[in-house]
């Protein structure tokens, strides 16, 4: 029995870990801002666009680098397809200037997306 249990255990752990890593790979690693009033991410089927802003100020949309104009165009396409409940999630590096994030919010406002959220890490203590 023992060798079989060994092997089965190993396989279980392997698949657990690899599935976890595979899920993680879908997210770009960023130094997100911290906040203490953040809310739990709910897993929903609602249409969502995640925009990553890297530490170099590049916009990453669906794994590709886009310009502010392309972003607005693509957001416009998405809202025409998905309707008003489209959610835009901004994952931004905390050290980037606000001027880099502003075009995203402006683009959202222009095409009529109001459901904009910021991804944050939970702050360990109260904000400074």
């Amino acid at each position, binding site marked *: 029995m023992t060798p079989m249990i060994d092997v089965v255990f190993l396989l279980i752990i392997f698949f657990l870990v690899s599935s976890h890593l595979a899920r993680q790979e879908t997210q770009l690693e960023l130094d997100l801002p911290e906040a203490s009033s*953040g809310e739990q991410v709910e897993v929903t089927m609602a249409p969502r666009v995640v925009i990553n802003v890297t530490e170099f100020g590049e916009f990453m949309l669906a794994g590709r680098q886009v310009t502010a104009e392309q972003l607005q165009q693509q957001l416009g396409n998405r809202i025409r397809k998905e309707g008003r409940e489209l959610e835009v999630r901004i994952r931004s590096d905390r050290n980037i*200037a*606000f001027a880099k994030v502003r075009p995203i919010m402006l683009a959202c406002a222009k095409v009529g997306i109001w*459901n904009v959220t910021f991804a944050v890490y939970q702050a360990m203590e109260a904000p400074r």
Partner: protein
Amino acid sequence: MRRPSVFHRDQGGLEIKMTPMIDVVFLLLVFFVWTASFHAVEYLLPSSLSQQLGNAAVIDSPPPEVEFEDVIVRILWQDDQVVWQVNGQDVLSLDEVKQRLQLVAGIKTDAPVILHPDEEVPVGDVIDVYDISRIAGFDKIQFAIAQ
């Protein structure tokens, strides 16, 4: 030739097998090391744009006429440092901003808070102010976006 004693044989039977134990301990070790290195959990800060559909949630230019009830928090960037202004008055620390916001929130929470960060201010500092406005209990927190 000496006959092996009864006691000796008994001792042999009590021997602990190390290999399976090491197997299991290794497995546990690998598992815990792996799980410990996972990312921090992400949370979401919903923006108030989501609650009000359409009606001037994002202001395209700095508000031309300042209404009395609005709380305008400017986040300025001077000499590579963040400086805050609440309704035109300089505030020296984020704690003080928090106190002032809580003071206003104690009177009425439906007053809109308008955040007006300078271009150079890091996003982290903007989110800090956004966060304390949320903690203070304001319902409407808006961003002023000048073009």
